[in-house]
């Protein structure tokens, strides 16, 4: 991930937001989607994505579905009911954070 320290704390929120928009997704699809949206600026590393997904799953935020695709099993993640309401909270938190960062980085002169 580009400048990973700054993005690290937001990874789970990014994943939840994507799942909220797209319904269900699998790991590789998530990495590609982020790359596509940010035009390659932000790359989620495999080593960070799967632990984040597994943690959210253990917390009951995500649930999994399995499908047989192209000779192999594919694991899809989607938000649980708890996850859907949690996403709203986390997005609000993230927006608040962005706003605060903006006022620190670009303080308006009064």
């Amino acid at each position: 991930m580009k400048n990973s320290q700054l993005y690290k704390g937001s990874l789970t929120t990014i994943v939840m937001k994507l799942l909220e928009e797209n319904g269900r997704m699998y790991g590789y699809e998530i990495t590609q989607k982020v790359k596509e949206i940010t035009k390659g600026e932000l790359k989620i590393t495999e080593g960070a994505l799967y632990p984040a997904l597994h943690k959210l799953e253990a917390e009951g935020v995500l649930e999994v579905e399995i499908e047989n695709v192209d000779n192999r099993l594919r694991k899809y993640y989607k938000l649980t009911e708890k996850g859907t309401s949690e996403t709203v909270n986390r997005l609000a938190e993230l927006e608040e954070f962005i706003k605060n960062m903006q006022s620190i980085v670009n303080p308006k002169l009064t």
Partner: protein
Amino acid sequence: MKLSAEQIEKLYQFTRQHYVEYYDLQTELVDHLANAIEEQWQQNPKLSFQESLQIEFKKFGVFGFMDVVGQRQSALNKKYNKLVLNELKTFFSVPKIIGTVAAIGIVFYLMKQLQGDFWVVQSFFFVLVISYFAGMVILTQRNKKRNKQNGKKWLLKEIIFGYSSSAGLINLPIQFSLHLKGENYHDGFLLLFSFLLILLGLTEYIMLVLIPSKAEDFLKETYPEYEIVN
């Protein structure tokens, strides 16, 4: 171009060679690698299977899959602890709480009567500890046998059958029982003691009997693929 069944099997082998023991994790990583390789072939059809696999594996960093395995382990340990806690809670809510309170009462009464002969209480603890270890050994053996039969390991199953993070818990009763002496203990202390004894007994029962007996349900719930491949 899509990967063949044979190449998928090679990817499974590759994950095993890189210390991913568990089928649930292998499956997810195999699909990831397969997608990535197919994507590479679209950009550059001349790349060989091995070449593109190495390129993708490098993206996981110097520790390879170790990080993913480790984190998955801690996530599922947490899940297991939650399962134990949830079962434990049922013993402290209606209707089971009646039995729990009664059991605490009986132990309390016995201890009050047996204060002079604390060796009796100590042997209770002794039985608890011994049966815990014996139970763990039996469960582990049984699971090993089953694994040999179908060759697939599931992380949550390993945690349920034998590998348990709470082995340290059992140290507590040993310490307790060693410090007991035949003195006149305060009622409050005896009550607390009875409570702890029952709590440990229940935890042991849940870990060794209850959860293993429901293991199939927990596994199916955690792994949708469990039924497909077993």
